[in-house]
């Protein structure tokens, strides 16, 4: 494969999220015929090269859109939640149909404190790792919210009075239940997506279209 204009051949660079989405990503890429053997034992390596020249870049999930948007990777796999929060300027090409979860608003069990807070205080206070998603949801539903950014254990915030509720990503809801929280509203459903850099989507249209088509077949076969 030669780059347009007769430049040197450059391998396709795929940005892969470490963590919860990693196994599903490897499985989908493998099913789509990508040589993923080198991803079997990542160790401490951040950049891995497959036998066919494909380069895998492994990062934290929230950094995947950053690398793809800047053109350090041509395509990447990332959760819809990260796209909603970061709004990167990239193409969202395919729903890879794994890593399913929901972005929800949850409060303590019992009476929902939200209407009362808005009536008396004018605002509801919400703790979240996803401030942009939380703010967009409350703005869109005509309610004022004070969004508090926290970096971990969001469930703690309503228990100790930091916030009336939380906006967070849930898969099974087990963590919410264990902390006496109940889901009140769903913001959106999330799953893993294939994204592409804007320039790569044009400059490497043939390769990226072929990869997308093979992944679409793999997704269909897994259903």
């Amino acid at each position, binding site marked *: 494969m030669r780059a347009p204009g007769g*430049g040197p051949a450059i391998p396709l660079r795929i940005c892969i999220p470490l963590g919860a989405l990693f196994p599903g990503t490897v499985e989908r890429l493998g099913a789509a015929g990508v040589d993923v053997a080198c991803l079997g034992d990542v160790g401490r390596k951040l950049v891995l090269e497959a036998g066919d020249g494909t380069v895998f870049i492994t990062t934290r999930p929230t950094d995947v859109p950053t690398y793809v948007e800047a053109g350090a990777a041509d395509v990447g796999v990332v959760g819809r939640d990260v796209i909603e929060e970061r709004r990167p300027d*990239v193409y969202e090409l395919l729903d890879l149909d794994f890593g399913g979860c929901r972005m929800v608003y949850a409060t303590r069990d019992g009476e929902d404190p939200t209407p009362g807070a808005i009536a008396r205080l004018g605002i509801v206070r919400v703790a979240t790792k996803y401030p942009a998603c939380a703010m967009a949801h409350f703005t869109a539903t005509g309610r004022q919210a004070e969004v508090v950014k926290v970096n971990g254990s969001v469930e703690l915030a309503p228990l100790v009075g930091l916030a009336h509720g939380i906006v967070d990503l849930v898969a099974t809801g087990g963590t919410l239940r264990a902390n006496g929280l109940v889901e009140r509203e769903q913001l959106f459903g999330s799953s893993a997506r294939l994204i592409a850099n804007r320039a790569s989507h044009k400059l490497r249209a043939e390769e990226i279209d072929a990869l*997308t088509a093979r992944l679409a077949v793999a997704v269909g076969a897994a259903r």
Partner: protein
Amino acid sequence: MPTTDGSRTPPPPAALPTGARDVLPLEAAELRSAEDALRRAFRAYGYREVRTPALEFAGQLERGQGAELEHVFRLFDEDGRVLVLRPDLTIPVARLIATRLTDHPGPLRVSYTGPAFRAPQTGKPVATEHRQAGAELVGLAGPEADAEILALLGGALGDAGLHGFRIGVGDVSLTRAVLDGLGVADGARVRLAAAAAARDLVAWRRESEAQPLTVARRELLAGLPAVRGGAEVLEHIAAEVPAAADAAARLGRVLEFTGLPERTVLVDLGILRDWPYYSGLVLEAYAPGLGAPVAQGGRYDGLGGRFGVPRPAVGFSIELELLHRAIAATDPAEALRDGVVLVGAMDAEAGTARAVRAAGVPVVGLPSGDDRADRVAAADGWRYVARRAGDGFEVADRLRGETFTCARLEEALPSR
């Protein structure tokens, strides 16, 4: 400043406003060289340069854009009217053409180069000042005009030294004709437009699959923003949606007339401009390693009318800093520049310095006896260092790594 204990206080931080930056000599020289190449390309097609002010009335530009300006620097004039630092040059140049060049018989060709400004946004590390170079062809509505603009853009980018770029070409009237031909309802169009604006092809596909269409037509709609290819994709669309055949044929003629290599121009129906004033052709040029288009533009027949004189118009603007970044990613910086650091050029050897300059070689002067000649040449990348030696000069050629002597510097240097 030395302090009482002999140490130096740290210098004050080189503070600049968010997103502002300085340009140092090497980058400035390369930016200048790219800009000069673009200007030569514009001139070769007879595009004459115009300039517009950096400050404009906010209302004027918003009238052109048809929407509120976002992320712009706003300030007030002496009467309290709202001014903006122009966020791009397309609308100001359209304003200039519609208000100052009204009696031109047309077709009218203008070009421009200048800085545009955008306000910083949290979390987006973009420069607040960026140079744009562009061209507008006014008064021609046919595919020939679109093709000239594409050929000019492709030629100018190539002349500037950009390799491996591609120009994606779409047509909003073709996309509209396809949606008309498929009978897509207004509500669905709004949702499709939102998905396209967000480049969310997953949402576009979901919306498409909910349409009551035959399987083949549904697949065509679902894949529309991902359509990228040559003239064959236009034939496919025309065959499947006869109502769009005319628009597809027009875009086919544009491609035919450009004369650019086949792989340089790519039909791309996923290109949808963020601004509502585009009416036909839309284009984006991409270079390897850049996340954003290096150039963009299209046809905006309605824009002049918003300033009083409706005339068909098509054009593009190139982002100079992005162009330079893409060139710098593939081409090494020029190792050494032709020029001589001449010891004594500022006093005893002033006559020789004049003669060498007249021969076309830059002379960097140092006073007689100054011992920094080699260091200056190394720091600034000059090729030669010359010193008086007897009746002639001893010259170090840093490019070839050799030293030679010559009687007349003005004859020896240009001939090497």
